[in-house]
């Protein structure tokens, strides 16, 4: 019982900042006193959402976040399914090398590559302020490739051999047999991949100077560091923007957490 109470207290402490974000985003006058931690109908307003929408153009920045995220998910599925299937079910020279390289990149921190990637993408290819430049370094989520490989590994070869005997090419086997049975792995990969680009700050921040191309995380961060000082209720507007940024990821997680937690585990422990 004491354990349950301690867990509950800890859980509430963990969730309090989220609750407080929503409460604060709905206050007309910022109230940082203890009384401000409780919703008060007299101080309620959607003004902060209007203010942050005016400053950041939420529709546009959300669209940018969406394009960035969708681009990464599509590339991850396309290249990842091909590679995951081949690594699990096909026998070819170089398979071991590619698989080991794949495990290795799981531990290379992005920040180490930040300067050379910036040189390549901005200077060599001229892809600053461009969706392609934003997507490229994140295009394939190695964790997702790993999920696909693990999934196809546990499918018996006979299933694919049957199609091969019928004269299907390897690509047809992938498209007609492998991908249709891989739905659970695909869903898991989408969920795990989603939070990467959606929450990413550093890379899109480095390469987008034009606000009309910035994902919401970058636009909100710039608002926090530059504009907030001049706004009427800076914290209210920041919290409204934070709510809009956090809701899609949190909702997706809560709705699909069974898949999510298992996938995170599978890739980190076995990896």
């Amino acid at each position: 019982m004491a354990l349950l109470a301690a867990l509950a207290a800890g859980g509430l402490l963990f969730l309090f900042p989220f609750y407080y974000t929503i409460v604060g985003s709905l206050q007309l006058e910022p109230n940082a006193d203890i009384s401000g931690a409780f919703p008060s109908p007299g101080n309620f307003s959607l003004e902060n959402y209007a203010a942050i929408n005016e400053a950041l153009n939420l529709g546009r920045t959300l669209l940018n976040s969406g394009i960035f995220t969708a681009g990464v998910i599509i590339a991850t599925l396309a290249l990842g399914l091909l590679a995951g299937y081949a690594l699990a079910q096909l026998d070819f020279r170089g398979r071991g090398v590619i698989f080991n390289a794949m495990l290795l990149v799981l531990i290379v921190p992005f920040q180490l590559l930040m300067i050379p990637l910036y040189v390549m993408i901005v200077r060599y290819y001229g892809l600053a302020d461009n969706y392609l430049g934003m997507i490229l370094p994140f295009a394939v989520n190695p964790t997702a490739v790993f999920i696909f490989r693990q999934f196809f590994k546990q499918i018996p070869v006979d299933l694919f051999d049957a199609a091969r005997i019928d004269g299907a090419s390897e690509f047809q086997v992938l498209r007609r047999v492998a991908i249709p049975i891989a739905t659970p792995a695909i869903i898991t990969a989408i969920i795990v991949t989603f939070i990467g680009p959606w929450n990413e700050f550093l890379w899109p921040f480095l390469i987008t100077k034009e606000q009309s191309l910035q994902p919401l995380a970058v636009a909100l961060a710039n608002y926090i560091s530059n504009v907030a000082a001049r706004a009427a209720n800076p914290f209210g507007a920041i919290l409204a923007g934070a709510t809009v940024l956090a809701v899609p990821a949190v909702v997706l997680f809560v709705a699909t957490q069974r898949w999510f937690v298992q996938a995170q585990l599978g890739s980190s422990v076995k990896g």
Partner: protein
Amino acid sequence: MATIAATAPRARRIRRALGRHPVGLLFVLPYAAFLVLVYAYPLGLAVYMSFYDYFFAAPGAVVERPFVGFDNYTTAFGDAIFLESLGNVVTFLVINVPLTVALSLVLATALNAKLPLRGFFRTAYYIPYVTASVAVIGVWLWLFSDTGLVNSALGPVAPAPPWLVNEFWAMPMIAFFATWKQLGFYVVLYLAALQNIPSDLYDAASVDGAGALKSFRHVTVPGVRPATTLVVILSTIVGANFFTEPYLLTGGGGPNNSSVSPVLHMYRRGIEQGDAGYAAAIGVLLAIGVIVISMVNRFILERD
């Protein structure tokens, strides 16, 4: 006729050289190209740049970028801000690692028991991990501002200047923030490790008269040791690589660089000031540091 006779051994030869399904090479080619383009090549470029006086000029301008040997590296070791940022990483690790290991192991053990609302607690502890840093930094800024809720609650004992702009508190605040944000992930990691401890070990311990605390110390803690190694290594990687927290939470590594991180310094020198060769050298040093610390941790935690 002759052609058919020639193709059969050739097919066998191809099979021997490329494997039973040479088409597999074609399937992994796009991903392999991606790994080369986004990991291998930049890694090589970082090392190359770190030996040159590589700076950004106006686009299109032809500039000389002379080879400077180890100059960038010797500069780094005489760079007070870089050294301070390394010290900040140490502060971060000293706070973050013990806190993370202790809290997540205790929480995982508690959540492993059959409790009502277990699913709710797992979700509650995991939510900060899936939320964008930028979003949660907003509310931390408000909570810990001069007139924020925390100071309102503390009243006269509130530190001045407030937490995030206080030279003593800024870095620990980043460590607390990271602990809070990552804890759910580590709890799940330990939960998985706990499943691998055979239950007869606990039975044996209780037959020997061990209480809950004793069996936690003598069965659980050694049983999850591989997970602990992983936690320490991952924390080290996070600690060496944070950027968003000092950039936004403590207003650009402030005050007085007391919370500057190596990556923030890299960003300033390399991208804001255009000294990319020097920034690349810092990146290489960081990578080497992380690898060495990981290996040492592994050695210490897994000896026996």
